[in-house]
């Protein structure tokens, strides 16, 4: 599988480490969110047969975090973004 890194171009998936659902980026505010919301973020995952947003870490490259949109049925990758850009597009500062 080839991942088209937004900065470095096509790179072998072997260079990356898979972390899982990109929803992990949306951690609730621990000071205000309730236990239910935190439990949901920490333990519950969707397991879609189809399009899925995932976190990949370029461990053998520039060590950037990526959000990869991948179809779990066909393994087709439709979009690769820097996790930094995705977070900022949601109004996050870091």
């Amino acid at each position, binding site marked *: 599988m080839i991942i088209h890194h937004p*900065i*470095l*171009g096509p*790179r*072998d998936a*072997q*260079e990356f480490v898979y972390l899982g659902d990109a929803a992990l980026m949306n951690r609730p505010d621990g000071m205000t969110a309730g236990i239910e919301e935190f439990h949901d973020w920490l333990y519950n995952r969707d397991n879609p047969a189809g399009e899925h947003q995932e976190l990949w870490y370029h461990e*053998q*490259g*520039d*060590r*950037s975090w990526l959000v990869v949109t991948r179809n779990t049925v066909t393994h087709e990758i439709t979009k690769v973004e*820097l996790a*930094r850009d995705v977070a900022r597009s949601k109004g996050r500062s870091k």
Partner: protein
Amino acid sequence: MAELQAMTALGARQAAVAVVGPVTITERFDVALASVAARRGRMAELEGAAKAAGVPLPEAARYTGGTPYSAFWVAPEMWFVEAPHATHELIADQLKAAVGNAASVTEQTDAWVVFDLAAPDLAPLMERLCNVDFPAAPDGFASRTVIEHMGCYLIRHGRGQVRIYGARSSAQSLLHALEVAAAAAW
């Protein structure tokens, strides 16, 4: 004052040179190194300061040579800057003075071992060592990659000229890996 004797990454007084078939592996300890990372939102400021100081800031996955400063890209808005050790032993201080608070600078000289590889064509060696598509990469290509489980920076200066930065604590293991792969390739 105590008279201190500098040692190379391999613990010797002289830089190591290994010849395996057509490949010459030369350890370099005359290179000073520092990282420069733009602070958030201050990239334009850093660009101006770097230009004034003659520090190149190449685009992603590239190396740009210069005198005295050369640099290669390591991450978005972050570079490693090289200079001759004889004149720039205090490279981090010198860069910090140039870029001020626009960037964070860290001393890297003694964290790495540097090997220069030379051969008519290094492709048979590089394809055994790492994931970089060496024949397809242009001259001036710079990338972090993994060689024998060790994170390294690889800079392609030409088809037969490569510089490799590896962790200084793994210097002997990296040299061994290079020698074994070269022996296997030719």
